[in-house]
């Protein structure tokens, strides 16, 4: 989802950005944005977790690098590609973007079935696959899906629960139609309108969410209700009931008899 905004912003900026020759002849791109543009075309290398704006603008970007590859050497290698080195920052993260995309690809098979899915996307900065669940349509298959995803992917997936009040497909359809009608000279306005509409849609989606929760290691959910299901599940899970040491001893001695 954020990726869509990133791509649209990239498109807006690229429409008004000219290709520049570089002074020292070694750097390939004037700013970090050039590197982003190339990776948008070629795909991220496996060591990249994602790329996002450092300060809200597209002038300064941060590249996420997987922990095991994060090194001064790699950072210098990337910096050498950019003339204005101040525009490129780095962050250490856990999951490669390609891995997160492979999870997303695998899970898209569940759309249209029993699972109450309403959306899914790779969140670069947060470094997870965000999975939107329609809480009003929660059912056993969806609860099992959440638990199985959490067991399989751990914190590489993040579930968000809300009402499906906004149809993103509809927004995309409307904006695409706007884009088609726009004259070439006004193309940047159409791109800007797309970005504004998408941002507005996202805001509505966020406002309409009644709760946003993170799946724990055991698949239980933490929610914001007075006593939420997640809190109850935690309480039940943290019980002190356990076999006594004497019982342990008796049972383990079975093999000695």
């Amino acid at each position: 989802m954020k990726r869509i905004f990133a791509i649209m912003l990239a498109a807006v900026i690229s429409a008004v950005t000219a290709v520049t020759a570089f002074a020292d002849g070694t750097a390939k791109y004037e700013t970090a944005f050039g590197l982003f543009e190339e990776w948008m075309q070629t795909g991220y290398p496996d060591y990249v977790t994602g790329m996002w704006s450092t300060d809200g603008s597209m002038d300064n970007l941060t590249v996420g690098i997987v922990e095991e590859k994060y090194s001064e050497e790699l950072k210098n290698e990337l910096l050498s590609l950019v003339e204005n080195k101040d525009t490129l920052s780095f962050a250490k993260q856990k999951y490669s973007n390609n891995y997160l995309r492979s999870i997303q690809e695998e899970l898209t098979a569940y759309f249209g079935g029993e699972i109450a899915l309403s959306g899914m996307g790779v969140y670069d900065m947060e470094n997870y696959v965000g999975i939107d669940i329609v809480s009003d349509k929660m059912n056993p298959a969806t609860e099992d899906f959440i638990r199985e995803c959490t067991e399989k992917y751990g914190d590489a997936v993040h579930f968000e629960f809300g009402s499906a009040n906004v149809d993103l497909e509809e927004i995309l359809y409307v904006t695409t139609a706007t884009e088609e009608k726009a004259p070439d000279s006004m193309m940047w306005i159409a791109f800007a309108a797309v970005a504004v509409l998408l941002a507005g849609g996202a805001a509505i989606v966020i406002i309409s969410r009644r709760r946003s929760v993170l799946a724990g290691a055991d698949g239980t959910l933490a929610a914001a209700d007075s006593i939420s299901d997640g809190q109850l599940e935690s309480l039940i899970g943290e019980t002190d009931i356990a076999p006594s040491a004497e019982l342990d001893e008796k049972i383990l001695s079975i093999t000695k008899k």
Partner: protein
Amino acid sequence: MEDRLSELFLRLRSGDDSAFAGIYGEVKKPVYIIIYRIVGNRETAEEIMQELFLKLYKAPPEDMSNPKGWIFTAARNLAIDAVRKRRPDTSEEEPHTSGEAERITDKIDIERAIAGLSCAEREVLSLYINAGLTFEEISQITGASRSAVYRTYRRALKALRKRL
């Protein structure tokens, strides 16, 4: 847990006694909780635990495809048998009011609230939360449909929320 359990079950079946301790260590807590929540007292729960693990040691299951399912099904069946033997006129759905839960966990309101649920509700809660099974797996163990298991689970949470 499933892969490790399968490996341990295979080793036990091939005569490796050291695998028994491994299996016990892996499952003892969730299995004990399920038995305890069904029978409602420590003494009976301990007897059933011994019976269950003796049975496992003497005759490990031939089918190794679902060791977790095997052990929780066996634990549940033994616990339900014990409840039936002890209280032949009492249905499973009757609220459980053992004072044992209060003695063990008197500072934990949740255990008192759980003790007031029906046997089926306690069982589903324990299998889902403490044993980490899916609704599908619980459905296979209990013989109830997945949607029935799910309804029981939701009903149990609702009842608990009222009691807390």
